[in-house]
């Protein structure tokens, strides 16, 4: 595989019907199997849902970041389901013990966030270490996921992939980098009029922010600061993206549609005629 092929594949996926993303992704991989790994790890598809049998079948979200072989790690029990053989799970990725503690805190916090903003839906947060050694309050990465389905006709997936790294210039400053993709699908079928309408797709934005963390405090407090910083950053990003989605979906596309078809130009032409007519009458009356 070459970079040119990978770039061409990403360009194609940005052009083809976003509702058939998974299908197009599979077709591209069939055409060029070498692309499989890179495409699967860089293209965001709608999140799938699994149940954690050890936590009252509580639902969790699945993506490439919590996958190993064909199993997905649950954020609630830190276990892969379907369960892996003990041999396989020896090599499975898990966050280091101290980072898992932060992951638990993050899942708890974002679950409250989910409830306040989505009033339903599912959230899941997965962390992974960036250094060989155990997490000590410094660099780590992860993904924050939200999904909300409302009937079969509307679906929202938020995928925030982030990296937190110590700033090279100051030991108490961290760089938070977040790449956010929101996949939003809305459709409507009007059976009385034999008509359908669909607004569907995804938007991606990158955000970066430097935030200070007091590294002289105990690890537990440092961890709480990281989760709070991530939380308010993602809260801001989602608010901005929600506005952006609203503008693109409901104003931009509608405006472009009217640039192809617009009955108003006929009536505005009549208006202009009427105005011209009124001018003439006015002119005559003033004589």
């Amino acid at each position: 595989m070459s970079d040119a092929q990978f770039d061409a594949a990403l360009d194609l996926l940005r052009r083809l019907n976003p509702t058939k993303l998974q299908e197009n992704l599979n077709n591209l991989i069939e055409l060029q199997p070498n692309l499989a790994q890179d495409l699967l790890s860089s293209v965001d598809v709608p999140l799938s849902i699994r149940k954690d049998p050890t936590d009252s079948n509580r639902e969790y979200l699945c993506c490439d970041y919590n996958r190993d072989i064909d199993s997905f790690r649950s954020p609630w029990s830190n276990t892969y389901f379907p369960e892996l053989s003990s041999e396989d799970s020896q090599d499975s990725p898990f966050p280091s013990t101290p980072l898992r503690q932060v992951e638990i805190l993050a899942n708890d916090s974002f679950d409250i966030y989910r409830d306040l903003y989505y009033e339903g839906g599912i959230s899941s947060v997965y962390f992974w270490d960036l250094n060989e050694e155990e997490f000590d309050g410094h660099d780590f990465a992860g993904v924050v996921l939200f999904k909300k389905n409302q009937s079969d006709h509307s679906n929202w997936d938020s995928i925030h992939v982030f990296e937190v790294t110590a700033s090279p210039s100051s030991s108490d400053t961290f760089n938070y980098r977040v790449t956010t993709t929101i996949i939003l699908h809305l459709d409507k079928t009007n059976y009385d009029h034999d008509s359908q309408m669909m607004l569907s797709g995804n938007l991606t934005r990158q955000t970066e922010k430097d935030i200070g963390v007091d590294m002289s405090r105990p690890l537990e407090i440092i961890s709480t600061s990281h989760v709070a910083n991530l939380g308010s950053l993602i809260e801001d990003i989602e608010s901005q993206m929600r506005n952006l989605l609203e503008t693109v979906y409901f104003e931009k596309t509608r405006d472009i549609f009217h640039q192809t078809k617009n009955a108003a130009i006929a009536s505005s032409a009549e208006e202009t005629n009427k105005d011209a007519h009124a001018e003439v009458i006015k002119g005559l009356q003033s004589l």
Partner: protein
Amino acid sequence: MSSSKFKEVVNKIISDCPPGELREVYDDLIKITSENSKNTLLDAIESYNVQNCIPVDVDGTFIIISKYNKEGSKFFDPINSVIFSVDHLGHKGLDIEPYEFIHSKLEKQQLKDLHDKLHEYLLQNFPGDVSLAVYPVPEEISKISIIIVSTKYNPNNFWNGHWRSSYIYDLDTKELTGHISTQVHYYEDGNVSFQSGKDVSQPNVVDVVSTIRDIETSFESDLDLSFSDLNEKQFKALRRRLPVTRSKINWGNAIGGYRLGKNAAEGK
């Protein structure tokens, strides 16, 4: 991969291409596969163009190609009296030759009168780049096919818009049937697609042009309502602009307070 499987996959990808972006999709597919797949891609593009009634530039006039004006590998236009081959990738007419319209029921002037009346309607309702076709339906002498295409392509700003409405009018039964389809693609830092379609069927149509005008005007105003409806109902139900508390979240250790508050309110 077998060549028939390869063809199938390429056809699927091409058929999914938004109007106005065929060239880019073709270039991408050549890069992903190889120059050797050129002929398979061009075949797929030809069927795409015919199926989607794509207008091609025939000596400065845009003529819609479709299954209704196909003759062998060529296409004809009864009103402009030309027959031509098509460069399907470049959307250009080639080997343009004169064509004489012969039909057992229809006169050329009849088609032209309808064409001119429709054209007048188009000018007042379609601000995009507009193409219009009025073709007899092969083998069915009482039927006329009408195709309207309006496009606004703006790749520099990462969007393309497309309208197509196509009808069959039966001169004997006076029935008008057809389909309207519209598509907008917005792909700046993402990939957003708006698509809408509607099946149309109307009996006892005497004035074809004013019937089409009425159908399309109400389709357009229904769409405006649907946009507002999807925004007000479905979109708003997915994620709130602000939490129920109407202020941003107090992150950190205090966040547990929201849950305590909620549990207390629910009497847990």
